[in-house]
Every structure is written in C-alpha cells, then in structure tokens.
C-alpha cells in the first residue's frame, strides 16, 4: 500500500520495506520517528530546491543515519556516524544497488554531523543533512508549510524530543568518548558529564611527537 505523508511518497519497494523493518526492530520510537521525519523534511526541502533525488537512497540514508545510536548497530571503536554508514552500505550492496549508490548513502550518513560539506555533494547526500538540520536544529523551519508540518508530526510525533535526543546521543557515546574529538558530539558529553575532558586540538598539536 502506497504511503504518502505531507505529499511525500514513501517508496513502495521491497528494499524500502526491509529498511523500515530493520530500523523498526533496532530503534525505539524516539529514533524511528526522528528518522522518518528526517526523510520527510529532507524530501520536502529537496523538492523545494529542485533537487532530483533517488527516493530509495534518500530513504535508507535518513532511516539508517542514527543506527549507530542503537545497541544493535552501535560500536565502541568508531564514530557513531560510521556505524550507520557501514550498515547502510552493506544493506544496499546486498540488495543489488551499485557501489556508487551505496557510496552516496555512506557519505550521507557519515557526514551528517559535518558542517557544510554534505550540502556541496550529491542530492542523496545533502537530503539527510537537510532533514537532520530541520528536525534537530530547527533550521529554516519557515520553508515547511504549517500543513506539511502538521502532517509530518501527526504521523511521527516528537514528544520531549530535544531532551530525549540529547540523552540518546550521550548514552551511545559516553563509552567511546575519544570518537567525539573534533566533532560537535563532544558538546553533548561535556553537557552531561562535568568531568568530561574534551580533547583539544591545540593541545594535540603542542604535545605531539614532533619537537617543533
């Protein structure tokens, strides 16, 4: 059955149904609803910008972008963004999408917390960051009409989202604090743990093995 929310079609394909099922099984309502909104906001903004998207790739990028925050797909050895990116790449390759397509989704997820860069890359890369910036940071909310906003939030509500998403970040990263160096994610650890010592680039430069 074709699903349409805020005039955005959720692609009606086997790959998309499997992606939904995978995320539904791994994520709580917070991350599932957030990821669906990321797809919807990102698709709406991409349409308004005239960007031509592969909807399956946009969907997998949006739905898998926070899988690194889940117990099933999160690791302790690398940035959480890479966890989702690697999961998405394998998922797409196993289902017959090309290496080039898988690479776009990998970048979309790996770079969704990297400022500016995704917006300069392919539409399927930019779409995830457009959605994330809308849902997490409220950027350019005026580009979403009140009717679109109401439709998306009716399908995927965001109760106490700000506090809950910050806690989810903290829970998934507090056991791999080193992976937050040089990213915005160390702000979250610093917020929740007064004893967290942010690794500082200036100190790293000054203390490294080179004498001068």
């Amino acid at each position: 059955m074709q699903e349409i929310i805020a005039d955005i079609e959720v692609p009606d394909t086997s790959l998309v149904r499997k992606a939904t099922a995978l995320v539904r099984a791994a994520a709580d309502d917070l991350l599932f609803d957030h990821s669906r909104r990321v797809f919807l906001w990102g698709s709406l903004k991409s349409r308004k910008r005239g960007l031509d998207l592969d909807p399956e790739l946009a969907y997998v990028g949006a739905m898998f972008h926070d899988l690194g925050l889940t117990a099933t797909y999160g690791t302790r050895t690398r940035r959480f963004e890479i966890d989702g990116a690697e999961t998405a790449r394998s998922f797409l390759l196993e289902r017959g999408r090309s290496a080039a397509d898988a690479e776009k989704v990998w970048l979309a997820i790996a770079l969704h917390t990297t400022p500016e860069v995704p917006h300069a890359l392919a539409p399927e890369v930019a779409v995830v960051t457009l959605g994330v910036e809308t849902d997490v940071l409220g950027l350019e909310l005026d580009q979403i009409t009140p009717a679109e906003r109401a439709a998306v939030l009716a399908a995927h509500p965001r109760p106490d989202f700000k506090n809950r998403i910050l806690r989810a970040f903290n829970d998934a990263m507090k056991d791999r604090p080193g992976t937050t160096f040089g990213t915005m994610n160390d702000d979250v650890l610093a917020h929740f743990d007064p004893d967290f010592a942010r690794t500082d680039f200036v100190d790293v430069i000054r203390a490294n093995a080179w004498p001068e």
Partner: protein
Amino acid sequence: MSTTIAGVEVPETAATAAATAFALEHTSQLIYDHSRRVFLFGSLRAAQLGLRPDPELLYVASLMHDTGLFTPYSREIQRFEVDGADHARALLLQNGFDTTAADVVWKAIALHTSPGIPSRMGPEIAATTYGVLLDALGIGLDDLDAAVVDEVVATHPRGDFKKGFLQAFVDGLADRPDTAYGTINADVLARFVPGYQRGSMVDRVLGSAWVA
C-alpha cells in the same frame, strides 16, 4: 627530469606545476613547506598501508589543502576546507581533468579535518589525511624510518611549525569565525581569540525553533 625526495617521486605535470605555483603565490612559506611534506608523508604512509593513490591527484590535494586559510580568495563565507576544495576543483577542471577526478580532490581537501572519515574513503582522500595527520599531529611518525623523515624535513624544514601553523588558523579564520563551529578549528579560536564564543550543539538543540 623528475625529482625524488625520500624515495618519493614528485610528479611534474601541468596540473602539479599549477598547484605549486598557486600554493607559492597564495600561501606562506610555512604552509607551502607543510603542504609539500603532506604530499611526501602521505605518499610514504600510503605505500606502507598498501594504498595506491594517483600521485598527481594526491599532489594537487596536498598543495591546495590549506589554501582556504588565505583570504581573500573567496567572497563566500564558508569553511576554509571547503574554500580550498573549491580552489582545487577549479584548478583541475582548468587543466583538463574530468569531474570525477576533481571530485576526489575536492573531498580530500574538504574532509581533511574531519576525524575518522577520510581514512575510510578512496586512496587519494585517505593519503591526504595520512599526510596531514603525520605532519600536523605526529600520527604515524614512528612508522617511518628516521632517515626518511630526516630527508623530508631537510628538504622542507618545519621551522617553528607548531606555533606558525596555529597562527595560520587564527589569521585565516579571522573573518569567518562562525565557520569553525563543530570542527577542530573552534579549539584554536577558543584558545587564541579573546572573546570568541565556541557554540555548543546542546545549546543549538535546546534553543532551536522547535518548542520541544
């Protein structure tokens, strides 16, 4: 006749000559020598790790990677990494390279300060980052023979590198401090620029246009 330094052949083509000229004209001696070392160290580390980057693309990426620190080259207020990436893409396209090659170099430069990501990408992108990590942070220094390191540094001396390098960030970001948010560059501004306010992702989330 080609030049070989520390066993690394330095490619001599129209594009590498253009990149050398651009770096000499638009950056400082300190950044030029750093950029040459990034190419040499990046090539050496790539060989150790079994990567085979295209030498010409790696050279252009290395020589251009910090050109975004020098203003005014772009009226666009954007991250210096993206500015440098744009310069390199334009240089390659003017020298007859296709968009695929230009895109590789663009990513190598745009992502050279993004932890944990470029090392998982293609050989030119990874090698650029390995060169930067070695010369700026000393990562991988122990894996090279001392004689090799000595030859690189004798050819392109470090001078008072740590101090001059940090100052280059301060100077290069003076007219665009907001672009440092969420990157390692914010650490440099926080240390050296009086009154600089490091933004926090937590504040951005809690203070966003969303109610909750």
